[in-house]
């Protein structure tokens, strides 16, 4: 890395919005970071193209007032994340500047704050000892960060093998203090502190292997966990037109999911939605640990009015932070809302550079960029045999709600679970509006996961989930027939088939994200409800005519929904269960 004295310097010759052309006569590299000096303020920028002695840079700020001739300093490194204790609970912008310590109500250009507190003392405990053979990502020591044992690792940039020469004793240290000295194979000594840097666009590969994921990741959302489960280390995406509840669903997952750490990348979305996280997370409790949600959360906010170029950076920054914590053997959930905004940022830039456009004017390499990004998620075994995972769920905002657009299609190729939000379900207020028939989870086909579900939930679980899918498809067909032929134009059975699927839809698929109890449904309870629904499905009922079917099932659904609102296995719950059995008995013949 270059030092301040021998920096490459260039000067601005052209400006088109946030694309700036810099004349430079020394070597520079693609994606190198530079700072443009504008009247005493440094504006951060990244090289995205080089033509002869002209570097095209995208500026992460407004370029208003910028003049040709302004001096540009190149820094000799790519965009980097700063990794060390103290990242949790912070609110960063897309370039990992701490938003809370910025001064003033408005974001000032060039107001770059540091990612970490360099003065804070941490209680360091050594984990490695002199003589240990180590490589990048191996644990040298740990400090307690909120409730997480934060590992201090051999920096990821260290290639090859090292021997630990010394590790400091347990005691209080600042992040810049040297906590270990390693010697490389040539006998050269290197100092290690508690903070390291890593270029965000490169994946951190400090692990031994990446097996197929096999463990269920509970989200508390029935239509996901029961019907189309996501797994630890899995990838999923949620496309949906506006108003179909993408953000509500993502927030629910971020609150409830069974993860050690949740990284939320608010990428080009509404500021008030981020404010909701800022406001609620410090108050809400993690249902599993009883600690405040904010303690396990990192928020990367590049809201839609913040600089466009930093939007792309924000998702990479978030992924890098997730990878850093994964290397500590933790379960990370990474959420990005919405990846379409990131794709649009790419499109704006590609357009300004006058590149030949692909479909819908998006850059040609969009599918490659997306699949490359999704591939950074995953379940891994670390060098020390411990496991860690990044589960990634992104939302996609398809233009015009059309799922045939390039971002949705590219994402579909990369993500293994697909949660299609349906306008029709949203319009009839059937939330969460995940379409149960179009959506899928490839993981359900993994023998590894099937085995896990059969062992941990029930022997017949997978079979029953498949049955649920059938019930839904048959219900849909019956409903279409009834609509075409009329209530009295179809056999009575059609009504029963339809209403049995309605019971499933109302009781399992629909869930009230704003009700304290119903919002989060643990697996045990999901299992209980599934068997209740199957009880209805397997029962044979007798009716005189179709007119009796609708009111009867409405009553039954109402009864089961009341149960969803009550504390599981409380007295009232038991009372309602009895009511439900009474209703079933009224009409059951077999």
């Amino acid at each position, binding site marked *: 890395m270059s030092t301040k004295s021998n920096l490459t310097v260039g000067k601005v010759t052209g400006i088109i919005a946030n694309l700036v052309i810099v004349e430079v006569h020394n070597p520079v590299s693609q994606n190198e970071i530079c700072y443009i000096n504008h009247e005493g303020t440094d504006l951060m920028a990244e090289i995205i193209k080089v033509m002869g002695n002209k570097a095209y840079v995208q500026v992460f700020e407004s370029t*208003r007032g910028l003049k040709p001739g302004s001096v540009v300093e190149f820094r000799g490194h790519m965009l980097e994340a700063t990794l060390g204790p103290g990242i949790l609970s912070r609110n960063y912008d897309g370039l990992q500047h701490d938003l809370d310590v910025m001064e003033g109500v408005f974001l000032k250009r060039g107001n770059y704050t540091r990612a970490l507190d360099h003065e804070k003392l941490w209680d360091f405990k050594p984990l490695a000892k002199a003589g240990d053979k180590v490589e990048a990502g191996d644990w040298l020591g740990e400090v307690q960060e909120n409730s997480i044992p934060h590992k201090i690792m051999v920096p990821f940039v260290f290639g090859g093998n090292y021997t630990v020469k010394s590790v400091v004793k347990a005691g209080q240290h600042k992040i810049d203090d040297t906590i270990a000295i390693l010697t490389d194979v040539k006998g050269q000594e290197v100092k290690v502190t508690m903070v390291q840097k890593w270029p965000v666009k490169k994946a951190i590969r400090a692990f031994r292997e990446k097996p197929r994921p096999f463990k269920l990741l509970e989200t508390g959302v029935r239509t996901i966990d029961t019907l189309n489960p996501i797994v630890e280390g899995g990838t999923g995406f949620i496309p949906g037109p506006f108003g179909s509840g993408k953000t509500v669903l993502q927030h629910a997952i971020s609150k409830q999911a069974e993860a050690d750490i949740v990284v939320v990348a608010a990428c080009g979305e509404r500021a008030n939605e981020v404010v909701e996280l800022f406001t609620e997370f410090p108050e809400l409790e993690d249902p599993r640990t009883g600690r405040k949600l904010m303690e396990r959360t990192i928020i990367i906010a590049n809201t839609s009015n913040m600089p466009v170029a930093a939007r792309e950076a924000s998702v990479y920054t978030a992924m890098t932070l997730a990878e850093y914590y994964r290397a500590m053997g933790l379960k990370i959930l990474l959420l990005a809302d919405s990846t379409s905004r990131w794709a649009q940022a790419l499109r704006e830039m590609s357009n300004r550079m006058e590149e030949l456009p692909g479909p819908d004017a998006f850059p040609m390499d969009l599918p490659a960029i997306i699949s490359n990004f999704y591939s950074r998620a995953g379940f891994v075994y670390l060098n020390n045999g411990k496991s860690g995972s990044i589960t990634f769920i992104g939302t996609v905002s398809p233009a*015009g709600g059309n799922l045939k657009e390039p971002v949705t299609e590219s994402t579909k190729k990369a993500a293994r679970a697909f949660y299609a939000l349906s306008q029709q379900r949203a319009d009839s207020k059937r939330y969460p509006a995940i379409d149960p028939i179009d959506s899928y989870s490839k993981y359900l086909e993994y023998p590894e996961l099937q085995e896990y579900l059969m062992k941990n939930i029930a022997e017949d679980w997978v079979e029953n989930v498949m049955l649920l899918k059938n019930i839904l498809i048959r219900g849909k067909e019956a409903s279409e027939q009834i609509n075409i032929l009329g209530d009295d134009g179809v056999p009575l059975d059609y009504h029963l088939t339809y209403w049995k699927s309605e019971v499933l839809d109302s009781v399992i698929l629909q869930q009230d994200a*704003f009700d304290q109890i119903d919002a989060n449904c643990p697996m045990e309870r999901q299992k209980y409800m599934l068997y209740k629904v199957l009880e209805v499905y397997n029962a044979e009922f007798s009716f005189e005519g179709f007119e009796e079917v609708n009111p009867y099932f409405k009553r039954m659904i109402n009864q089961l929904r009341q149960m969803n609102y009550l504390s599981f296995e409380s007295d009232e719950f038991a009372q309602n269960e009895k009511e439900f059995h009474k209703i079933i008995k009224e009409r059951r013949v077999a």
Partner: protein
Amino acid sequence: METRAFQKIYTKITQITKATCSLQATGVGNEELAMVHGRLAQVVKIAGDNVTLQIFSGTEGIPTNAEVVFFNKPPTIKVSDELAGRFFNAFGQPIDGGPEIEGEEREIGGPSVNPVRRKQPSELIATGIAGIDLNNTLVTGQKIPFFADPDQPFNQVMAMVALRAKADKIILGGMGLTNDDYLFYKNVFDNAGALDRIISFVNTTEDPPVERLLVPDMALTAAEYFAVDKKEKVLVLLTDMTLWADALSIVSNRMDQIPSKDSMPGSLYSDLAKLYEKAVQFPDGGSITIIAVTTLSGGDITHAIPDNTGYITEGQLFLRRDTEIGKVIVDPFRSLSRLKQLVIGKKTREDHPQVMNAAVRLYADAANARTKLENGFDLTDYDQRTLSFSKEYSEKILAIDVNIDTEQMLVTTWDLFATHFSEAEVGLKKELVDKYWPGKN
């Protein structure tokens, strides 16, 4: 804008298109204002010494030897209390015959609020319209458009909402407003005796279209002055954002940019977001709420303008003529206020969320029954009852001429439930039914 002494005057224009011209100039900053042949212009591209200017009022008649003077600053507006009650054009110049504004000069389209300095919106805006207050409650700091076809009375509804909203300042940004609509707003505000808290920036259909690009930034910079410096509750009305976006596409087209969906520039989302995200609630009480109009073509919301808008704004309101009752209603299916969850049942009665959802669900059942009827099928007794419910619900709740408070809306809705349905059919939480079902207490 006056010229100052010792300014360098350029007189050699090298390129002229319909909306832009280029010349050789040095020391020019990006987005800086200039005067070309007496017309205002803004720097949009710099390539070495070659500077491209966008001429707001068009380039008709500009000669190659026209005088060009750079102002060394981006577009600005002078802000002070004197703004109240005044009418301005897109450049912030008075059009009401009054004096120039004295005050602090501020750049328009300034930086964004740091998201951690925002407060979560929590103050309800009461409009008396049940289609809004009951089903799509508005909150200060929210941004929401009316998605409307040109023939719908959105200007009337918006003026009504503005006057009932009890804002400290109402700022109207009119883009491509017809002269008639401009006079309509002026009269309504005048008749309501509200003129002293209204500020208007107006570009009418008589003005050049590119000028209107400045209108929202002018309005919102004035709004920021009152919301931040004066801690006031400011309501900004922007009409019509579709015409604003059309102007944007004209400019990007002239700049040879590759168009994306519907001939709109690829940056449309960011451009719209920069405006709408100025809506904010500050912790010290100041707020900016934006109500906008996006006109649709034949109700198509998948067009790039409403589509991008919908992803940015916190909901959208649809107006629809209900043929059963012959009145305009706020469409309960397609309308949505995303921020309503922050206030309903908290700032309003506890039963609000559930009652709202149940009523809309039953209204949807009525729509299904109507489809059945149209397809020639017999209706069940339940279907019949949903139909009579939906008619009364439209008349007593949804129609925009109904003006009642939220509590009354809830009482009315419970009455309708009890008139037409059984408790199980409505399917509400038992504790609410026990408390509010008419005749239970």
